[in-house]
């Protein structure tokens, strides 16, 4: 027997486990924080949590390095040097709040719109919007406009819900999973878990992405599509499925507006609008009677085929218009193959595979349910084809229509809200009709007239002033981008600097690195932030910023409100916002201070409560003038959005004890959440878990949970009538008329049926001069500006070469270690390159936001992130190149205003290796110094 050392194989793991919600990215997983000696010792996933069920990604596991990062801000800061110098002095919170209210309160009393309040990756939007509404400014939004609003808005306008927070594939039943433009972040752990489940069952995965990395690397089929052509590819699949009759007719007739009658008289002012009865109900032809009937009438059998004449006007079902458009030769695989970079044969093979799985591998669940027409069904029929998509298809100027095209494909296959398909998560499904419309009416000293953001139903809902000019600084909800449901954060600084549509006084931002990676045209935006007028005053007079870390944006602000780390704060992941629900359950969660801050910092939301209390903002103040809430935790527990509905749904006070959903505030609510692992979950009965938009059992459960005030069954909008209303205006109908220069664009892009048009940059930039598409992707182990200072994660992703496909690599004679000059119509960068074969042959790419500015994030000035890391942002402008018409054309989707990051075209040239990447930026002075030279992190003994 060998002499082996004796080991203690049962050492004590920790003193205590505290369960809270991760914030290392936006996915909101549950975590177990192991504590030793009062300090954070180890973080793992919470097995009971509905989002991650115990697993945790690299970012989450590196949370300990984020929580203890040397880049944490320590106290409020007042700028003492010029903007951009990084020269600050630490001040007290009293002084910081005094300075802020000194700027804000006069604006509130005289011109609230002169405050632009934009929050970045904010998970408290229902609160921050409430604050802005009570302040009275119309200028509020979060980061959706530069992130993925096309995906969210197209989903909601088409089917009353979208991917990611609002839905998920039926992981347990799907037999074919197809992803489009999915970068390696959203929905981080659930997608990985789902892929694992799908593969375990031997089901197939198809990845459509110019880059074969991450999820696309494990996909069984990789379609290395040309960027910006996904919509064309999808509509070619639709073309093939229609020709073959491989569509779910029953589903289309019963659950969509395919049978709804459309006015087809080109001379009518209602041309293209849907036919309604005297109660405003959409009309279909009932196959039983052959007569028009309300779509939801008891027993009605909607006809997809029959037309209807009334007063000499022909009305045809949406299905006719669909067939006419997509059976056209322009959508045949042969017609699109070259532009998509996918062979016609392959497009057909994929269409056939979709058809085979959807219709030959049908799933039938024995679950009885009753639909909104009163019919009871013994079973639930599933088409086990599921889809997911994200920024890759969304961040183009044709992104909204591309996302709509994908939803059209899903719905034609009958694969939404059915077993094996795509499923909604509460509070979705939710029809557009119960979303708010945008509000923008300003009254000095008073709250705004309603919520800022919403879903327009037509020109009447645009955020325009009486003179027709934009009411909002970002020009959201204007003719330039009428359906901009998330606002347009990427236009705020540019518009404020240009005084277009007006000048502002104070820019107030949270968690948005607008002086670096969160902005287009980084150099230009830095200049706008520091630009002065003829009197030597800054063009944007005041900038307040809140961040937990010493990011690049800190240096460009006048007043810093230091935020806590995610382990030191209260938060609610609310059903009023973007909760943590699963398709089978409603769920919400909290963060709570598992450790108290050791610095003079406050959670940003608490700072907002204090500011509101100082200004006595209406919604924050009792009738006697006292403050309603002392801090954010107090708000979370005691705020009621309407009677009985608060930020957290779990453990409210009912008439007979504790209840969920609707109920009075419960002073012990946070304690109960903590005891329950930091979250609340309420499951949906099996019979109500599918077919939710039409399932009366689900509808009634949702009313009980407070998700709806009354049942809201609806049908999917394959034909988006709202868009047609904007087209009608562009054709000259109606009182609110678009400016002349936008008429043709609105007619072409706000098509009520999904359509493909080339990305705008293709029309503004010479494709021969700039033949190459350039993209970024997020790495799985790094979350843009939140992660790059993380001591562990930067050892995995500290560098970001530009990856070049074989064709470009060989044509330019590149070799390992080479550098390239990359030029767009807007700018030029010089960067290190690397070869990647598994890449679309006309596409280059790099990891997002690895590049850092010298002096930021407590990194040393010679950190590779600052010397070799780079941003593509320098090549992307927030405006399209001037057309000579004197107008500022946004580089955004014309429907939603989403930033068109991925329209970028470049040319690549080999160049001598410089010492550092270009452009170079002078170092900023760090308000926190730099990190230690060595880490030996062990908190226990």
């Amino acid at each position, binding site marked *: 027997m060998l002499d082996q050392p004796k080991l203690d194989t049962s050492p004590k793991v920790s003193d205590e486990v505290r369960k809270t919600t991760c914030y290392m990215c936006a996915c909101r997983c549950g975590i177990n924080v192991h504590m030793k000696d009062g300090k954070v010792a180890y973080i793992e996933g919470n097995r009971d949590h509905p989002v991650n069920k115990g697993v945790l990604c690299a970012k989450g596991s590196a949370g300990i390095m984020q929580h203890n990062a040397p880049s944490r801000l320590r106290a409020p800061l007042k700028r003492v040097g010029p903007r951009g110098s990084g020269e600050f002095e630490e001040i007290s919170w009293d002084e910081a709040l005094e300075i802020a209210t000194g700027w804000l309160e006069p604006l509130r009393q005289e011109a609230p719109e002169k405050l632009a309040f934009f929050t970045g990756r904010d998970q408290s939007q229902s609160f921050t919007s409430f604050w802005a509404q009570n302040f009275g400014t119309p200028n509020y939004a979060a980061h959706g406009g530069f992130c993925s609003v096309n995906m969210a808005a197209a989903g909601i306008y088409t089917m009353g819900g979208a991917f990611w927070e609002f839905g998920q594939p039926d992981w347990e039943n799907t037999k074919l999973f197809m992803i489009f433009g999915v970068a390696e972040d959203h929905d981080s752990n659930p997608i990985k878990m789902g*892929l694992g489940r799908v593969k375990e069952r031997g089901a197939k995965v198809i990845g459509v992405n110019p880059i074969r990395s991450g999820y696309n690397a494990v996909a*069984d089929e990789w379609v290395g599509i040309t960027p910006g052509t996904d919509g064309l590819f999808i509509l070619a699949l639709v073309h093939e499925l229609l020709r073959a009759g491989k569509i779910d007719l029953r589903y289309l007739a019963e659950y969509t507006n395919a049978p709804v009658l459309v006015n087809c008289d080109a001379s009518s002012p209602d041309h293209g609008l849907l036919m309604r009865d005297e109660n405003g109900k959409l009309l279909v032809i009932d196959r039983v009677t052959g007569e028009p009937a309300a779509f939801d009438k008891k027993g009605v059998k909607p006809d997809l085929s029959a037309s209807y004449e009334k007063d000499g006007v022909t009305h045809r079902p949406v299905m006719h218009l669909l067939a006419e458009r997509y059976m056209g030769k322009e959508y045949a695989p042969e017609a699109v193959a070259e532009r998509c970079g996918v062979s016609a044969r392959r497009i057909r093979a994929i269409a*056939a595979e979709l058809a085979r799985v959807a219709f030959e591998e049908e799933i039938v669940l024995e679950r009885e349910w009753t639909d909104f027409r009163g019919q009871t069904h013994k079973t639930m029929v599933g088409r086990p084809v599921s889809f997911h998509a994200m920024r890759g298809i969304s961040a183009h100027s044709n992104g909204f229509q591309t996302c709509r095209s994908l939803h059209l494909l899903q719905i034609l296959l009958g694969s939404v809200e059915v077993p094996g398909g795509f499923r909604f998560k509460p509070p979705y499904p939710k029809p557009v009709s119960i979303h708010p419309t945008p509000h923008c009416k300003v009254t000095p000293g008073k709250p705004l007239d309603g919520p800022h953001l919403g879903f327009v139903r037509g020109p009447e809902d645009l955020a325009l002033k009486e003179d027709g000019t934009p009411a909002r600084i970002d020009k959201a909800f204007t003719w330039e981008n009428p359906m901009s449901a998330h606002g347009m954060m990427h236009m705020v600084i540019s518009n404020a600097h240009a005084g277009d549509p007006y000048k502002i006084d104070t820019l107030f931002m949270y968690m948005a690195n607008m002086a670096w990676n969160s902005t287009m045209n980084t150099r230009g935006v830095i200049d706008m932030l520091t630009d002065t007028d003829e009197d030597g005053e800054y063009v944007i007079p005041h900038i307040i910023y809140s961040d937990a870390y010493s990011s690049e944006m800190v240096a460009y602000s006048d007043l810093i409100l230091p935020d806590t780390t995610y382990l030191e704060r209260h938060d609610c992941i609310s059903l009023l916002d973007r909760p943590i629900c699963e398709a089978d359950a409603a769920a919400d969660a909290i963060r709570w201070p598992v450790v108290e801050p050791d610095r003079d910092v406050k959670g940003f939301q608490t700072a907002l409560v204090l500011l509101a209390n100082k200004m006595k903002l209406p919604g924050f103040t009792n009738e006697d003038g006292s403050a309603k809430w002392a801090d954010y935790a107090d708000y979370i527990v005691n705020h009621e959005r309407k009677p009985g509905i608060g930020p957290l749904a779990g453990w409210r006070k009912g008439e007979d004890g504790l209840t969920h959903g609707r109920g009075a505030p419960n002073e012990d609510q946070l304690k109960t959440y903590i005891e329950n692992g930091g979250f609340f979950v309420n499951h949906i009965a099996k019979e109500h878990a599918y077919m939710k938009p039409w399932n009366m059992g689900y509808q009634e459960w949702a009313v009980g949970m407070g998700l709806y005030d009354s049942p809201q069954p609806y049908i999917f909008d394959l034909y988006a009538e709202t868009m047609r209303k904007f087209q009608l205006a562009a054709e000259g109908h109606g009182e609110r008329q678009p400016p002349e220069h936008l008429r043709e664009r609105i007619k072409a892009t706000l098509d009520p049926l999904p359509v493909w048009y080339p990305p705008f940059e293709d029309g503004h930039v010479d494709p021969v001069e700039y033949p190459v598409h350039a993209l970024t992707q997020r790495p*799985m182990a790094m979350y843009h500006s939140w992660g790059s200072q993380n001591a562990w994660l*930067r050892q*995995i992703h500290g560098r970001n070469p530009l990856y070049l496909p074989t064709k470009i690599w060989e044509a330019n004679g590149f070799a390992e270690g080479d550098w390239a000059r990359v030029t767009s119509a807007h700018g030029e960068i010089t960067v290190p390159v690397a070869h990647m074969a598994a890449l679309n042959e006309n596409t280059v790419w790099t990891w997002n936001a690895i590049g850092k500015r010298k002096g930021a994030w407590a*990194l040393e000035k010679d950190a590779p992130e600052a010397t070799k890391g780079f941003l593509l942002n320098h090549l992307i402008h927030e405006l399209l190149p001037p057309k000579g018409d004197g107008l500022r054309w946004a580089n955004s989707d014309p429907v939603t205003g989403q930033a068109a990051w991925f329209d970028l075209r470049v040319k690549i040239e080999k160049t001598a290796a410089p010492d550092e990447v270009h452009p170079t930026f002078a170092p900023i002075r760090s308000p926190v110094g730099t990190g230690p030279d060595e880490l030996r992190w062990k908190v226990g003994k």
Partner: protein
Amino acid sequence: MTTLPETTQRKMGLVIDLDTCVGCHACVVSCKGWNTENYGAPLSDQDPYGDDPRGTFLNRVHSYEVQPLAESGMPHPAAQLIHFPKSCLHCEDAPCVTVCPTGASYKRVEDGIVLVNESDCIGCGLCAWACPYGAREMDEAEGVMKKCTLCVDRIYNDNLPEEDRVPACVRTCPAGARHFGDLGDPDSDVSKLVAERGGMDLMPEQGTKPVNQYLPPRPKDRVMAAPDAQIDVLAPLLAPVAEEPKGFIGWLDKALEKI
């Protein structure tokens, strides 16, 4: 020189599914976190905020591009990317143990785990040199050799719930690509998985007899791979019901009659 046990009672190890691993590095960081806080010295990081950050990791993920060979049905196969997590394979004939001059490196009789007894390690580095897989890392701060312990302080730990008595990397893997068990027992779940999926030794020519096994990626891009036979299977699925919208509407009417 240190002696290996002739046999071990069990052969505990990992089975890593290269078909499912998405290369997310969750295992890498979870391992770093657990093993910084637990067995032996913390895994230190040098220059963690500077120009050459380098720390000790017991598990790393590498990515390799693979160019499949052309075949008749697929003359231009697309390149593929394989994510390849790598840590100590707990070899049966572990050269890192036999080369150890102090006996600090050893292979446990009861479960086959290869460990370093840090108090006996002189940091000579011979074991890292002997390991053909590059699976050992010298901790710069402590001056001792670090390696995967298979979380020996988790897998038998009475202070953890039973379901958590697996290595940290296995517990955290979001895609479920990592499996843990006794590869010496042909009836264990991991052995069955290896048999079912054609699990492989890494670099068998080295003669190290690694315990850890890798499951190969499934064949990819097959929708177009086979000669026309494959397409013929799918073609009837797309047999047209109509070529023009008018014909389609006629078909629609008839088809609706049937449902």
